[in-house]
């Protein structure tokens, strides 16, 4: 029994580990290897090693820095707005309110709609002239916002879509956290004469923090890596000025077949995210234990 038992856990985890090694571990190493070659559609089989050439060409290209900066702006704006709206809605819903369950279901819809359908619908709504948003803006007397042809407005359109997609997740997480805050805390605060705003600032937000921080990290990484929204909004050959790092990789690799350059980009993104994650995990450890 003991001899069998020592092998058992390895046999049990073997299938999962093998799939992950094959689909994540190996591609990771392969990608690093690829970044040192010149593989593209012309040199698919007879590629050669070119050392750090790809890294130099990317890191000396101004466009890399503008894209990286755009990715940071994209992540910060998206996460900020989806968390703010999500927490606000959760606070509003977390009280006695007739019809609140119905409103909650309506507010969760963006989460339930398949993401690709939602994005393509938004793209349709942003169409010039016949798109719903242009029609509404025209009625308000605002004309000439070139949503899908001007890179700046395309980027704004992507942000609006992505915030819309992100709010329900944050709302649901925050609502769950709010419901776990003991009601007595508020009663005590009420007895001490706290105003409503003070109540939220000193009780609700500090107690939300431990639940929200992990969701914040996860959604930052999701947003940083959001190919769907950008790729679907801008199409297969989207303008450089609307791309973030990952959508750039996706397009370079699968529209322009420039494999080695895309692989180099991937390695650089990987390093950026690794640094971000380790800094954040350290910061998170400092945030534990609010009840102590």
């Amino acid at each position, binding site marked *: 029994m003991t001899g069998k038992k020592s092998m058992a856990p390895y046999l049990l985890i073997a299938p999962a580990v093998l799939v992950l090694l*094959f689909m994540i571990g190996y591609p990771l190493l392969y990608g690093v290897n690829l970044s040192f070659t010149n593989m593209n559609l012309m040199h698919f089989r007879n590629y050669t090693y070119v050392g750090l050439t790809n890294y130099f060409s990317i890191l000396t290209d101004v466009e890399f820095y503008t894209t990286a900066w755009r990715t940071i702006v994209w992540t910060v704006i998206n996460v900020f707005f989806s968390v703010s709206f999500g927490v606000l809605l959760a606070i509003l819903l977390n009280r006695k309110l007739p019809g609140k369950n119905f409103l909650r279901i309506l507010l969760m819809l963006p989460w339930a709609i398949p993401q690709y359908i939602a994005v393509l619908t938004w793209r349709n709504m942003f169409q010039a002239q016949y798109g719903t948003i242009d029609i509404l803006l025209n009625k308000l007397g605002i004309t000439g916002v070139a949503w899908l042809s001007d890179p700046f407005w395309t980027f704004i359109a992507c942000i609006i879509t992505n915030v819309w997609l992100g*709010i329900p997740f944050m709302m649901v997480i925050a609502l769950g956290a709010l419901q776990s805050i003991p009601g007595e805390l508020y009663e005590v605060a*009420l007895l001490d004469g706290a105003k409503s705003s003070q109540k939220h600032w000193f009780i609700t937000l500090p107690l939300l923090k431990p639940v929200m921080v992990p969701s914040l990290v996860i959604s930052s990484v999701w947003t940083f890596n959001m190919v*769907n929204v950008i790729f679907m909004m801008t199409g297969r050959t989207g303008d450089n000025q609307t791309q973030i790092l990952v959508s750039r990789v996706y397009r370079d690799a699968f529209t322009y077949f420039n494999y080695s350059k895309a692989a180099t980009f991937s390695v650089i993104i990987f390093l950026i995210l690794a640094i971000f994650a380790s800094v954040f995990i350290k910061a998170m450890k400092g945030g534990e234990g609010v009840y102590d």
Partner: protein
Amino acid sequence: MKSEYFNKQDSLLKIIIIYTVLIVMAIISIYPLLDIVKISLRPASSLFTSDLNIIPKNFTLKNFETALFVRPYGTWLKNSLIVSLISTVLSVIFSITAGYAFSRFRFKGRNVGMLSFLLTQIFPAPMLLLPTYILLRQFGMINHYLGGIIPYIALAVPFSVWILKGYFDTIPRSFEESAYIDGANLFQVMTQIMLPLAMPAVGVVLLNSFMATWNEFVTANIVFTDTELHTLPVAIFNMTGALSADWGIFCAACLVTAIPVIILYISLSKFLIGGLTLGGTKE
């Protein structure tokens, strides 16, 4: 009277403001869905109109007929079902065994193993996509169901393992110990004792994996380039790609595809959200 329905501290003005904000946000969140309904009901001749009514004046179901019967919707549905169902079932089986091992056994490499499962979530799929593509191409899996199924298993497994491991942790060991004393083996303990007890978590993981793979676009778009093998997300995306995108047919196809998913999600949302925090309390 008032206090029966509302919090005592909430003044009338505050209640009005709260309702206004919630209703405006609710309209914004459902509007895109209403927009697809509207466009799907329009005849092709009046596609380009600035009419904002939800039910157009000359509404028609022609778009639905075209989307479902003229286009090979059945084939795409079949492809989506094959890829999603097979990868979901396999990933859940792999996750149950791995989650059980992480929960019940103390073995060398356990901590490293669990940490690597978590790390795969921090560095998600898009960055691995290109090497994966080249790898699948070398194995001849491009335009082959396996080219979707294998990456999807890898997509679903890490999250499922963590949820299941957390849930197994909450089940007392005494159940299994008495079974072992009665002479049951590991396989019997897992299938006859642990699995029935872990059903809530298994349900969450099944549903989550199915949804994730059912809606997956980024991988499917590069693996299934052959129209015959398109899954629904790829097929629907490609409806918008052509220069003269037919938005009416596109919207009809979107609705037919999205409504079952929306109903499933909303009706199971309590269960799903509860499930996400199931294992959260223990290490």
